[in-house]
């Protein structure tokens, strides 16, 4: 009964959404047009020389008349004409455009009450009105002739006017198109070129189908199975993954999805670097719009779809094991959180198939993101996907909070939690307090973009930097959300491989908690140049400086843990040590940026880019790759290959620094971030960075190979290959179905008589 009602309810929701989408008004958008016969004849004879300066057409002005595929007699069609490109590539505004359109047959007419388009008395063409002169896109109607076995010639002239200084610097172009009736005999012409995304889809489809045929056919031949049986076999293998609520399976899916998106985001990063190989003009490699989409997707993917899933994958797998629980508190909720992630990711990427993904930056600053000049509907997809990812994170946060607070095994008191569990506890606390704010902000943005509300509409009097407050209230805790678990991983690895307890466990916990608290009162440091209240900016400078203190404590405690220890240098430890170096550099540049006078010069420049890549790649990603090497034996029962691991670290560390260290210099030289081109004097350094980045990308394949190779051929790991102390090492590798055959009890060294 309940399911029936739910089904009706969800169909109702879908219908409501479809109606809302179809009712969403599509925007249409342009001195008095060409209204006398003499000028008309002149235009037909000589082109659009009404603005006397340019007698020749300008090729770069794009005049685009949208026509139906064919026409049926007597039918009325709505046509759209717009102009873009050219030297005056402006958006709509005072005196920015004009047009003139004629059809060889049928009847052109303005849409009723249209104040932008007119048909001058006694003439057959359409032109703009005084009001229509402010636009660059016009809609009008065309009624087809009685016969439908003929073709009709359309000729459109577009005038790209620059608004300001009279008729100087105005440019025009012409488009002539033939429209055929449904019964017209059309000479077969060469097939129209496929668009980029279409090619991509077809290529993927062809590859997938070919692979499928080869693999299934191979199975059928070698094992002599019927087609159905082969498919059943695959279904049996996939089914448990699709339906699982087991934290270990969900954890592995999270980690794999995270690294999968990391690969996609990495490719986008390399596209950015290829674009910046040399100062390029628009469209040389990527158009400027495509470039904007690329860095938007790169940032969004890396933060929300790569870093966070990798973190929560490890948390999923390890938290129940570390606290001695059989699963998370809400396993089904956990599966829902997971499945929202690939779904949200795909929705965000759908933008690529609709003519350009979101181009608003991962920060999505309004009023650009709420206005018309952002890509549509790419940005809408970006917004929709973000809502899903926000929901996913909120659910995850609740789940882990309850699990860690309520489900600890005997002996595991709060101050006896492994530091990774502590870091996740603080992380989900931050997440629960911050991400709903972002989700609400993005819902407001969706309402602005889709339903015409005015939350961020500056012309209607909205606060222009409201979004920045909402975003960074979430955005700053977010960067600690991705770095605190890395601290947890580092603490675990360093303790184990120094073969002795962490130095200052209590102060480590307090340091992380302090970072968590401070993270909410420092977000204004992203807004030092924004025009927010100077007192606000001054206070956040003070609090931001304070972050250095607990972070410093952590680094010094790790170093003190190792001092006097007995260090075993295996791959996880080497990655941890590399992380300490790169993270320290990222931390230091963070303090440089915290000082407002320095930030004013460096803000939104490559120095900032260098800083956050040192922290996020050199901090989060390096430590979690170390985490993969460290916990892989627990997850699969196989050890990873040490030689390949060492090679992977050496190449990664070198190329990472080669790619990102020079960004500091480029930033000091004044190159702003998010620039698709740059001053020619910086070419040499940018080339160096690009080559470093590409090598950095390529050597990650060693890691992929190592994982696959070790999964098949690795040595057997045993329960506790690294001699760790925490509870995850007490169960078998991989853990049994319910994680622990018997719930363990954590003992305490002092009581064990050591």
């Amino acid at each position, binding site marked *: 009964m309940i399911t029936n009602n739910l089904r009706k309810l969800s169909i109702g929701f879908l219908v409501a959404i479809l109606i809302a989408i179809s009712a969403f008004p599509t925007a249409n958008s342009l001195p008095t047009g060409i209204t006398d016969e003499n000028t008309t004849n002149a235009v037909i004879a000589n082109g659009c020389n009404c603005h006397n300066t340019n007698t020749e057409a300008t090729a770069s002005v794009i005049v685009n008349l949208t026509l139906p595929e064919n026409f049926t007699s007597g039918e009325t069609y709505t046509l759209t004409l717009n102009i873009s490109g050219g030297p005056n590539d402006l958006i709509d505004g005072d005196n920015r455009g004009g047009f003139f359109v004629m059809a060889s047959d049928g009847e052109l007419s303005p849409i009723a009450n249209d104040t932008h388009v007119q048909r001058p008395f006694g003439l057959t063409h359409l032109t703009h009105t005084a009001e229509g002169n402010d636009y660059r896109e016009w809609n009008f109607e065309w009624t087809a002739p009685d016969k439908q076995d003929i073709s009709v010639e359309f000729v459109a002239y577009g005038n790209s006017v620059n608004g300001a200084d009279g008729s100087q610097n105005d440019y025009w172009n012409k488009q002539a198109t033939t429209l055929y009736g449904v019964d017209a005999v059309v000479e077969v012409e060469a097939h129209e070129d496929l668009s980029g995304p279409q090619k991509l889809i077809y290529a993927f489809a062809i590859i997938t189908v070919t692979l499928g045929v080869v693999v299934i056919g191979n199975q059928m031949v070698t094992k002599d199975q019927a087609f159905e049986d082969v498919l059943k076999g695959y279904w049996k293998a996939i089914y448990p993954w699709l339906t699982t609520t087991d934290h270990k399976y969900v954890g592995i899916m999270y980690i794999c999805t995270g690294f999968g998106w990391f690969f996609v985001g990495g490719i986008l990063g390399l596209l950015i670097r290829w674009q910046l190989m040399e100062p390029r003009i628009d469209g040389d490699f990527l158009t400027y719009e495509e470039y*904007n989409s690329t860095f938007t997707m790169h940032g969004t993917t890396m933060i929300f779809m790569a870093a966070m899933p990798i973190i929560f994958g490890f948390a999923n797998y390890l938290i129940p094991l570390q606290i001695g629980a059989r699963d998370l508190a809400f396993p089904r909720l956990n599966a829902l959180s997971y499945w929202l992630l690939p779904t949200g990711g795909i929705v965000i990427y759908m933008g690529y198939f609709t003519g350009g993904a979101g181009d608003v930056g991962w920060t999505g600053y309004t009023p650009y993101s709420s206005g018309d000049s952002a890509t549509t509907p790419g940005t809408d997809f970006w917004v929709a996907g973000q809502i899903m990812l926000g929901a996913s994170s909120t659910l995850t946060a609740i789940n882990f909070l309850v699990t860690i607070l309520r489900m600890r095994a005997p002996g595991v008191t709060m101050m006896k939690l492994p530091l990774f569990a502590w870091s996740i506890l603080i992380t989900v606390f931050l997440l629960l307090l911050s991400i709903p704010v972002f989700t609400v902000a993005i819902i407001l943005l969706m309402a602005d973009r889709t339903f015409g509300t005015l939350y961020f509409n500056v012309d209607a009097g909205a606060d222009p930097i409201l979004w920045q407050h909402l975003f960074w209230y979430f955005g700053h805790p977010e960067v600690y959300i991705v770095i605190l678990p890395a601290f947890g991983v580092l603490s675990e690895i360093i303790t184990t491989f120094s073969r002795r307890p962490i130095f200052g*466990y*209590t102060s480590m916990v307090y340091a992380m908690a302090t970072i968590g608290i401070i993270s909410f009162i420092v977000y204004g440091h992203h807004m030092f140049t924004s025009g927010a209240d100077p007192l606000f900016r001054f206070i956040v*400078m003070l609090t931001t*400086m304070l972050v250095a203190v607990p972070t410093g*404590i952590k680094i010094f405690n790790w170093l003190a843990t190792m001092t006097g220890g007995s260090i075993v240098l295996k791959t996880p430890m080497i990655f941890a040590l590399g992380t300490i170096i790169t993270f320290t550099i990222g931390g230091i540049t963070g303090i440089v940026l915290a000082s407002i006078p320095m930030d004013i010069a460096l*803000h939104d420049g490559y120095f900032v880019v260098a800083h956050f890549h040192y922290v996020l790649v050199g901090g989060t990603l390096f430590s979690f790759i170390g985490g993969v090497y460290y916990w892989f034996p627990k997850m699969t029962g196989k050890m990873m290959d040490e030689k390949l691991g060492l090679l992977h670290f050496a190449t990664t560390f070198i190329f990472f620094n080669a790619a990102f260290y020079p960004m500091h210099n480029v930033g000091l030289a004044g190159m702003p971030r998010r*620039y698709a081109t740059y001053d020619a004097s910086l070419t040499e350094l940018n080339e160096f960075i690009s080559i470093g980045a590409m090598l950095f990308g390529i050597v990650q394949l060693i890691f992929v190979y190592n994982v696959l190779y070790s999964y098949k051929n690795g040595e057997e790991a045993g329960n506790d290959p690294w001699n760790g102390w925490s509870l995850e090492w007490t169960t078998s590798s991989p853990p049994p179905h319910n994680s622990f055959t018997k719930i363990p009890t954590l003992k305490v060294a002092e009581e064990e008589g*050591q």
Partner: protein
Amino acid sequence: MSLIEDLIFFDNPSLWNDFGGTSSGLGGIVWQMFIWSVIVGLLVIIWLAYILVYYRHNDGDPDPKDVLKLGVFPKERGNTMIELAWTIAPLLLVTWLTIISLAPLNYLWDVPDENETDLTIEVIASQWQWEFVMPSNYIMPAEFTKCGSFDSNGTQLQNEHVTYNCLEIPHNSIVRFNINSLDVLHAFYIVEIGIKQDVVPNLQTLAWLDTSTVTPGEYNIYCAEMCGKSHSVMLAKLYITEVA
């Protein structure tokens, strides 16, 4: 310049060298930041190197006395004095870095009133151009030749009160910028001088420049806040010219 030199040396935006004469040289914020960064970075790296040299585990080493045991929460290690020391030391360091930030901050944010300036320019940013509007009583000095087009007699065609993507201002004067946006966010960024201020629609922001602190010449103005398709070509030139 070779790549290696590029990596080692960098040009400070000129404002950094001398924030209005208040914090220049080695005591100034740029050098202090640089010196302390190097000290902290070296401290960590040298400590790490020392550890790796002296505390590697070799085959046959006995287990340390507090070695980790599976399923046993390890003994608490720590030393309150040492931990306090490395809490207070970074606190002192960041306090010092904050203090030396104050004078330049005060200099940057203390925008002179319009009646105290030699020239107040309305900067109007829109997608994707910079418009500079001079005050109504402004008389362009005869030395100014950079902005605007000229007819065959050398007379400036463009209205001297309004220039696009080009701005010429006198040396040795205090210039104030009232910055406005017509559409979305932009950022007014004078690259070589290190002035940056977001351009916010519906909110006038301010910046100022004492041109006596910089050498006359050509400077770049960039847009530093993502504003759409042609963001990376929303550039302008700033000329600082000596006038008699």
